[in-house]
């Protein structure tokens, strides 16, 4: 980890800058769906939990990993579902362009 720490810091810094630039452009109209979407994306932490539960190194790690999968998966499923439900409701009064 030590050797890669600097690379990881670069990745973090660049992603944070991209995040600021991209999210600054999101209309206040969509701030609620934005938050539920980022929440679902953040639940990508599930990949860490999957490896933990699947490696089966120790019982404690497997149990905690499984609970972590449950928590993160519910965010993935619930987050995408509600974001899409909200966005479906946003309709324009102008006729849609083809």
């Amino acid at each position: 980890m030590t050797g890669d720490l600097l690379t990881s810091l670069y990745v973090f810094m660049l992603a944070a800058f991209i995040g600021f630039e991209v999210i600054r452009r999101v209309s206040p109209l969509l701030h609620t769906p934005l938050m539920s979407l980022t929440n679902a994306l953040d639940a990508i932490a599930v990949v860490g939990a999957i490896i933990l539960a699947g490696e089966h190194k120790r019982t404690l790690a497997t149990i905690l990993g499984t609970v972590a999968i449950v928590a993160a998966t519910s965010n993935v499923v619930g987050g995408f579902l509600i974001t899409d439900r909200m966005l479906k409701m946003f309709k324009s009064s102008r006729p849609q362009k083809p």
Partner: protein
Amino acid sequence: MPSTNTIIEIIYLVAAALFILSLKWMSSPTTARHGVWAGELGMLLAVGGTLLHHGIVDYRWIAIGLVLGTIIGVPLGMVHMTAVPQRTALSHAFGALCVTLVGTSEFYLRAPNVPRLMMAVLSMEVILGSLTFTGSLMAAGKLEEFLPQRPITYKGQNLVNLSVLAVAIGVAAYLVAHPERTGLFPVILGVPLLFGVLMIVPIGGADMPTVISLLNSYAGLSAAAMGFVLDSKLLIIAGALDGASGFILSVNMSKAMNRSFSNVLFGAFGQEQAAVAGGKETRAVRSATPEEAAAILAAANKVVIVPGYGMAVAQAQHKVRELYDALTKRGVDVKFGIHPVAGRMPGHMNVLLAEADIPYDKLLDMDEINGEFPQTDVALVIGANDVTNPAARTDHSSPIYGMPILDVDKARTVMVIKRGMSAGFAGIDNPLFYLDKTLMLFGDAKGFVGDIVRELGGGHG
């Protein structure tokens, strides 16, 4: 033939790109749903790729976790739109729980030989994760009204809270220097759990938009820290994006409330409430009936409706939609002026109005609509108070002085639907109500708007 690991890393790379595109497409309502699909595809790829990981020897627990999570997730995705803020707070708690549990396992799998640098990152992950977990549960409880909404404050509260946090950070620093003292690990797990609770105790309902955004940011940062521990670039990217998003929203909300970050967390608005409650004079106001209000609205060319949280509490958004229809049919130009904190989380009011089928191009945010008030015939305020208070512009002694407001007082006529003359969240009297051009419409928002609609329908047209 590239190794499985390389394939997995390439899949993660694609997923990361999809995540960034997903957020980019959120910038406009016309492309936003593509954003959801991109996010879903990225997630599917990432989870699928992870399952190829050669370290995985047992898929049973993974399957159980995925199935249970889906069973819990579906109802959480189907909640009513008014419940979205508490659902969001709850999902911050779940995200933080996942991060904390993984961090805890990682520690015990490596203990007692945890490298110092890793211990530092692990501590950050676990501290942020656990305080976000309990803090978000508290916020969800307050929003769902399991817990009292009013801020609970006591003398020396900030000192107590900061000392608790200092203990956690102090012990973490000690652990970094002496990672072999594994017995101390539960302290950096438990103390932040307590801090999370204490942090939300003094927060009132009106401050929730800021607090939810801040917790969102913490949840993202804890996930990024987890990415450092697991050396997962994808997780670092997702965490950084989420952290940045939460941070931007928190700053927006703080600005809209005219307060600094530290003021929201350590300021406890409740104390100011007590100070301004006394010494209110009883001044004359003009009131009007639904018939009079309907007649004025029907004669207008341009109407701006300003909804506040009171409208959502009264479940009046569908009646408001009927009013919008009735007026639009008569050729009245109707728009909505939305204050950034007009709900319980950023953008909440837009969702509630979109749910009532009000077209989104009629929903204008504060900066867009403020220039239009001088040409507006009627500004109709429904269940909003402090965000329309002109004292924020003029009265230097007002506690909300400097707060950005909707300039409804610049419209030719102002109508305010309100139950009575009580003050708003901030406990501050609103001079808007006593202006000559202001008509007070006393009653329940849903009932009163319904009466106006009936009057409009009963006339010609």
